[in-house]
């Protein structure tokens, strides 16, 4: 079973993502900020990361930058944000995200993207 780490400071959003992902058969862990996420990711790397942008003390950019420096194999990350501006999207890619979705995510889109990034058969 693929393992996914959901990082968001809002418990409701975490639960929302978790229920979508678990229904699709992923194993989900949670972290409330970038710091906790990095600790977890360094202990046991995950197959994919779903990252919120704005969460003190470390935001999603900070987490991704450090993750990308520390990890040995590349695990895809999806950044999820309320901002739709291209500038925010570009920042996400610069920090090391592989995809960008605007909150609230649509379950189908969310899962399709994850499957694409994980190379799971879709058709």
């Amino acid at each position: 079973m693929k393992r996914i780490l959901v990082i968001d400071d809002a418990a409701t959003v975490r639960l929302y993502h978790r229920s979508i992902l678990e229904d699709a058969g992923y194993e989900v862990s949670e972290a409330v900020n970038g710091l906790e996420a990095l600790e977890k990711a360094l202990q046991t790397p995950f197959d994919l990361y779903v990252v919120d942008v704005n969460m003190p003390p470390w935001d999603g950019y900070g987490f991704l930058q450090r993750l990308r420096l520390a990890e040995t194999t590349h695990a895809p990350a999806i950044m999820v944000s309320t901002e739709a501006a291209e500038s925010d999207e570009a920042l996400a890619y610069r920090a090391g995200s592989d995809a960008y979705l605007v909150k609230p995510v649509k379950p189908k889109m969310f899962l399709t993207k994850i499957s694409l990034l994980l190379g799971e058969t879709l058709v």
Partner: protein
Amino acid sequence: MNPLLVQFLSEASDCLEGIAAKLMQLEKRPGDSDLMNELFRFVHTLKGNSGLFDFPEMTRVLHAAEDLMDAVRTGAVRQTKNFTDEILDAMDFVGGLTREIEAHGHYADTHRDEAVRIAHGLRALLSSGEAATSSVQETSTSPILASLPPQSFQRVPEAVKAALSNHIKYGESCFWIVYKPEEGCFFQGDDPFYLARHTPGQIWGCVENREPWAPPAALDPYRCIVDFQILAVAFKEELADHFRYVPDQVKILEVLPQWLHPQAVAHTHSDSNPASGTQQSEDALSEEIFESLTQVFRAQRVILEVAQDASDKKRRLSRIGTTLLNCAKAIGQPPELLEKIAALAKAAQESGDATALLTWMQDFQNAGFRSIATAKEEKVSAASETRSVEEAIEAKNAARSEEGSPASLAGTVAKSLKVDQVKIDRLMNLIGELVVSKNAIPYLAQRAENQFGVRELSREIKSQYSVINRIAEEMQDAIMQIRMMPVSVVFQRFPRLVRDISRKLGKEVSLVLEGEETEADKNIIEALADPLIHIVRNSLDHGLETPEVRKAQGKPATGTLTIRATQEADRAVIEITDDGKGINPEVVKRKAHEKGVIDEETLERISDEDAIHLIFAAGFSTAEVVSDLSGRGVGMDVVRSAVEKINGTIDLQSRVGKGTRLRISLPLSMAVTQVMIIESDGQIFGVPMDHVVETVRVPRSAVRVIKSAQMTLLRGRLVPLKTLNTLLRIPAKPQTSADDEYAVLVVRVGTDTLGVIVDEFRETVDVIQKPMTGVLSGLQAYSGSALMGDGSVLMVLNLKEII
């Protein structure tokens, strides 16, 4: 209720509390950027969460609040008293909705108008001053507009479209603006670029040239040949106002839902709601894959564009290779193609030149990702996109470097768990039972020795008992700690309350809160809330004077109300002090007599100190005019009984013209009661240790009888005596000890001290007191019963009732 909704409500209540607290602090420290950021984050989280559900009214208000707060945070709009009021109003509205959701799972659909009004109020502050938005009306009734999107709309990135669809879903008006400046506009003093960039509510924009650019040498810089396309979430009036000098060059079109969903005919917000998770048909899936693939491919190009240096580019190329391979795998491409991708990625990584890879990506995309044969055209004008992305990154980076780097690694995160209170209560009940049942063990040891004569075993049981006893006590202590809550939980609502009430009454009050970290059991804290609010209201209403009166008396115009919590031994003490006009004992006496609370005789004899305590008597109100704040129905007697219900005591001191001080003393916990066991007429009873002052033995000769009352002199003080047997209507006479002494339990009930004659004292024990239920609940003489270690039942006396 659906667990997501439960989670939402719980988090929402935390956020709302946080918002109220931060707003109050912010009023004291305007411009504090940390506070502002925290405040913003609460609203931001709340808005994000509400977006998961179909609560358009709530999201709409929160969205407006978030925008306003963001503007205040960045300094674009000044923080005024109005700002606080508007945000508070908005949060009250949201709070009301959450309570409705809590009760019914949803809220009534009658809030739309109010939501619109509040959102307008917030947005009006946002465009503060210059633009009067008073006559703005709902734009939901759109005039004759083209139902087809303009050609350039296809250039809008998917992410922006997704956001746009959210805006529309929440009933916000979104507009597509086409601004075609005249060629000679520069000579008329126009600045088209500036005007376009400052469009209110802009979420996306692009520039198109009308004709191919001439070579630089031949270019006429004084001729404007570009058009602007802008997407904005704003009111039409706002936009019209913004472009008021160039109305003939601007077209403003409302964005219609069908622009975003060409197939969907009627698109209501309920079916696009992600939380409802509607299943979509089979062919819709391939649509999703196509869209996702397009987005992922586009993302890969940007990922490459934003590489910082050569080595970073190599790392990025490796990532892109992996992603592309995974995508191809996911859509079931043949192994040959996978090999080709791998080879291309590897080559690009080694040479640092990604041209071949990018070309392949474009071809593959243009071919509709080959095996997915949904004929769809994707027009990506890569050049303009890349340019705008680069610009955006520069702008953002500049902004970010000003803000400083992210927090350092050293910042530790407090870990805590949220547990359902029912679980804690269950654990506490179990521990309570353990505490009581372990009390049976010493009896067992005694029986082992006395009845069966095995002294050795008895000793072993006793030593084992002391181990169990220690663990049980520690467990009890631990569970109490879990249930402890700081009084700040109750205190935090006072700044708002005091502010609102004093404004209403036209008084100036400064509130001082002290000792907010003092802790007590959750039940105590919760039971404390209502009496405290009532006391504070009373102080504001009857205690503190208006600024004019205060000045006339030589006091500062602003009154001070202090609420201080402290811990004294095993009790929490809360003092509410004001520097108002105090309580006039003469007025109280007269009123009490008028209302029939005291008789003529008492009126003349009563001391001033006792007189002011009359305000706690049932049906008493000293207000000359009954205001809507303190109300007529509940008086201080309700406060007193609420405090006494949780075994608290209340004391009042007041000086006319100087102020009033109320002191509430509360037990830290009420789960376990310490009771003293006493014996009378061969029966045992419990007396809560809270009431017991001391135990004394009084010789029969020292008991005096004055009229029909018994009393004795104790260390120079006259203490009235009552016999427990008489109080409980037990006919037997009290017994004296061998030395002809009475056993007298000196107790304090309210403010009175008196001695109760019993037959014998026994030990004190910790018991879990259970209230009297069913038929027994009518027995006022007992406050409850408790199970003893030997299995017998101890009746705990309710001294207040029997004396």
